Each structure stands twice: as C-alpha cells, then as structure tokens.
C-alpha cells in the first residue's frame, strides 16, 4: 500500500495561516552571495519540497529557517516569530517545536538507538522513565525499528539510521519537521520507505514539513508544493502536477535529468579550440 496516497485533507485545511514565511531573504558568506530575494511560505499541514542542484543554497535555506544562520536581509518567520529578533532562549523554545533530519542522520554514536530517540524527551521533559520508554517504543514502532532499540548507530544501515533519526526528530511531536536530503545515498527500497514515512508522519502529527532534496521523482509523489532554487533564487514553484506540466526550461531540465540546458554541462571556460591551441594556458 502506498501510504502517501492517503493524504489527510482535513489536516491540511486546518489553517491557511503560513507556518513558515520568508520575505525577500538574502544571505551571504562574507562576499559570496548564496541566496537573494527568496520569497517562500509553508502552510500548516503541507509537505513542501525545495529542489535544486548541489550547492544552489538549499541547505542554507533550511538553516535559516532553523535559526542556525541569520539572514543578511529580509524576514524569516516561523509560527509568527521573526527569527532575527529572538534571543537564544526564545529560539531554543521555538526549536523544541521543530524537528530536523540531517543528511546522514547525525545520530549520537555513543548512545543506543533507544537512547538516541529518548534524548529529546529526557532533555526537555520530566516524564518518568516508564513513560519515556513507552513513547520511545511507539516512535520506533512508527518507523518500523522497535526491534532495533538496543543496537548502536554503527550497527545500522544508512536507511535504518535515517529512520532512527526520523523517530528522534518527531520525538516531541513537532509542529515543523525539516529534512536535509532525506533520500541521499539510499537504495530504492529504503528510499520508498523514507518517502512514505515523511508523508505519513506529517499527516499523523498534523505537522508541516520542509524537504530539501534533488530527488525529483520520489519527492513529487509526496509533496504538496515545490520550490525550485537555482543560483540562489527561486526560479520556479508550483504543485507537483504543475511542475510535471511545466514548460520552464530549468524545471524541464531538472525533472527530466537532462545534461545540458539552463544549467550548463560545462563549467565556464574559453572555447575548446582556444584551450587546445594553448592560448590562456596557465
């Protein structure tokens, strides 16, 4: 059964107030501009995909939303809070309602699977150990790894580690879940499983999700809305159907994995003949 066919329209229509809003956001590392003029919004209950090639600024965008980086200009707002105006304590208060799945899981290697998932519960709640245990087992059951509770991260495959990290990210039932390249380096089965889980957990928790990825086909099956980022700007956006039907040259190249197009195959260089004849050789 493909779980992500059964989307909860009830949850999605819960509120039309956007949970995450980015207005004219600009960000640079020193002189190097990474993002410019970014306008983006995520409504409650939605799974939003942010797609683009490697190094286009997708992960930076996620870090801005998580408050790990501060925008150079513009507004990044989550649940009505302008992140640039929050003090550290307030930001931490907001982060308790966020979950983030890192590209390779970022599990704590000195803890077992159980302790990894229990970590946020033990840090932020005073729940008795029995209740923590029940909650952890429920979260692990949701990702299909209840039987792996005693394993250490070194004993897990890439897909399993990502599922444990997902259980840990949703341990406190967050309002916003962020995924940084959740499909990178996974086999087709693990890829499908993670895709299902992202959609299913989002709908079950009534949360919103932002997924940064360059895996077009898996993503278009589970997201509600997509933003395409290229060279630090949003170059296209729309629902999965609109994206599939798009005639935009960049979207077409990306969705159909074409080697050449608006994103050139060749790194900028002088003409081949000129290089072969030795002109401009270093």
């Amino acid at each position, binding site marked *: 059964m493909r779980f992500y066919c059964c989307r909860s329209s009830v949850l999605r229509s819960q509120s039309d107030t956007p949970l995450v809003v980015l207005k004219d956001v600009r960000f640079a590392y020193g002189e190097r501009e990474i993002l410019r003029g970014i306008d983006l919004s995520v409504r409650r209950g939605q799974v939003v995909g942010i797609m683009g090639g490697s190094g286009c600024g997708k992960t930076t965008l996620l870090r801005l939303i998580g408050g790990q980086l501060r925008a150079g200009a513009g507004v990044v707002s989550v649940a009505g809070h302008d992140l640039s105006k929050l003090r550290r304590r307030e930001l*931490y208060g907001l982060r*308790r309602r966020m979950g*983030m799945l*890192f590209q*390779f899981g970022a*599990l704590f*290697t000195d803890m077992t699977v159980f302790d990894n998932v229990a970590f946020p519960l033990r*840090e*932020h709640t005073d729940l008795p150990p029995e209740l923590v245990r029940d909650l952890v087992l429920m979260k692990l059951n949701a990702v299909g790894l209840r039987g792996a509770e005693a394993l250490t991260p070194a004993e897990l495959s890439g897909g399993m580690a990502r599922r444990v990290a997902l259980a840990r990210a949703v341990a406190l039932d967050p309002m916003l879940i962020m995924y940084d390249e959740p499909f990178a380096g996974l086999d087709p089965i693990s890829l499908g499983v993670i895709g299902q889980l992202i959609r299913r957990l989002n709908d079950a928790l009534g949360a919103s999700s932002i997924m940064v990825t360059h895996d077009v086909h898996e993503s278009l099956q589970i997201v509600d809305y997509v933003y395409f980022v290229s060279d630090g700007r949003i170059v296209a956006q729309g629902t999965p159907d609109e994206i599939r039907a798009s005639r935009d040259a960049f979207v077409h190249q990306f969705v159909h994995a074409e080697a050449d197009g608006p994103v050139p195959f060749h790194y900028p260089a002088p003409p081949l003949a000129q290089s072969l004849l030795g002109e401009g050789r270093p």
Partner: protein
Amino acid sequence: MNGVNGTLRWLGALVTNGVWRLGFAARFFALLLVYSGQSLRRVHLTIREIYFSGVLSLLIIVVSGLFVGMVLGLQGYETLQRFGSGDALGVLVALSLVRELGPVVAALLFASRAGSAVTAEIGLMKTTEQLKAMDMMAVNPIARVAAPRFWGGVISMPLLAGIFSAMGVFGGWLIGVVFIGVDEGAFWAQMQSAVDFRYDVLNGIIKSVVFGIAVSLIAVFEGYDCTPTAEGVSRAITRTVVSSALAILALDFVLTSFMFRGQS
C-alpha cells in the same frame, strides 16, 4: 623588498590569527563557565567523563609513576651516597615527585591520553553534525558536551597527579629500601619531617589543578573549534597535545617561581 614585505605579511597574519584564536578560546572559556551550572547539576554527565578521562588513564599513570619513582631511587641514591646522605633518599624522591614530577609528568601523560581523546571525540561529533543536531534539538552543546568533559578533566587531574606521586614514592622505596638497602626507618622518617603539607603537597595540588584547567580547556576548545573534516580533526588532536605540553611547562615555570623561592 618583496621578500621582506612577504615575511612581514606572513608574520602579521600569524600574530593576528593567534590573537583571534586566543580571543575565541577566552570567549569559549567564559561560555563554558556560564553553562557549567547546568552540567554540574546533572552530576552523572560529569561522573561519566571522570570515568573516561580519569579512570581509563589510571594504567598509564600508575605504571609511569612507578618507573619514574624507581629511576629517581637509582639516580638519587647514586648521587646522595657520594655525600654520605643515602638516608635522605626518601626526602629527595618525595619532594621531586610532590612538587614537580607528579603534577607535570601526570599532566603531560593526561594531555596525551585523555586530552587527545576528548578532542577527537568532540571533533568527530562536529564532523558528523551531532553538535548541530543537538543545537537544533534546543540542547546547548557547550552545556551538554563541552562542560562535562572540561570538569571531568579538572577533577581527574589532581587525583591522577596524587596517584602518580604515591606510585613514585612506592617505586623509590622499592629500589632504595628493598633492593639497595637504605634504612627503612630513615627513609620514611626523613621524608615525614622534610615534606611540609602546605608548602609542598598543597602547592603540588594547586599546580595539578591549574594544569587540569589548562589541558581540559585546550582539549575541549580544539575539538569544538576544529575544521569538520578528517584532516581538521587530526590537526586539532596534534594541536591539543603540543599546546598542552607547552602550556604545562610554561605554567609550571610561572607557578614554581611564585611558590618556591628558597624558603624552607
């Protein structure tokens, strides 16, 4: 002229970078102290680090202390007996260890064994985004990861130095009394009358606490500040061992010059 300019520029960059890093380290130390309350309240985190830094360093400390004491016994007796003072061997062994060798050699061993391990652990946590993940879970990595390791080192260091000195005295006794035949009564009695608790033992403890603070701070800072790559972690570990050794020796000179000026 270009060569001179280049050298001056290189020297300037070296000094500026050094000052920047010192500033970062000072800021990090201040944050470490600010967040120490949180980690000390959860005492099991610090106890765990005392185990990893202190208990697991016991073997190298005990064995090294024993050998250093035995060498002191051999060398000390060889020199003392020329002046007919072989019975003062206990005093020589005890004062050398309690005042200098105990704190300094134990700190050097601690930096190599535990300091490098702490840097490697924190550096790898940074490389594998574990620190970022913790920060995203609204858990401060300085309070949760750095502070317990820092205090674990600060608490372990004087205890290890004490064990090192005790093993050294035992080694000196083994060589002096058991093998060479120095009078046992004289060995212990002279040691007891010549070693002052406040002047010798307490100053030795103060030294080892200062070394503990220096080594632990360098170890956690280098791990936390490393470039998150395999090469970055390896460089950070090297820096921990080298900087710790230099800091221990420089601080030892400063402390000795304040503590021991020829009074008895």
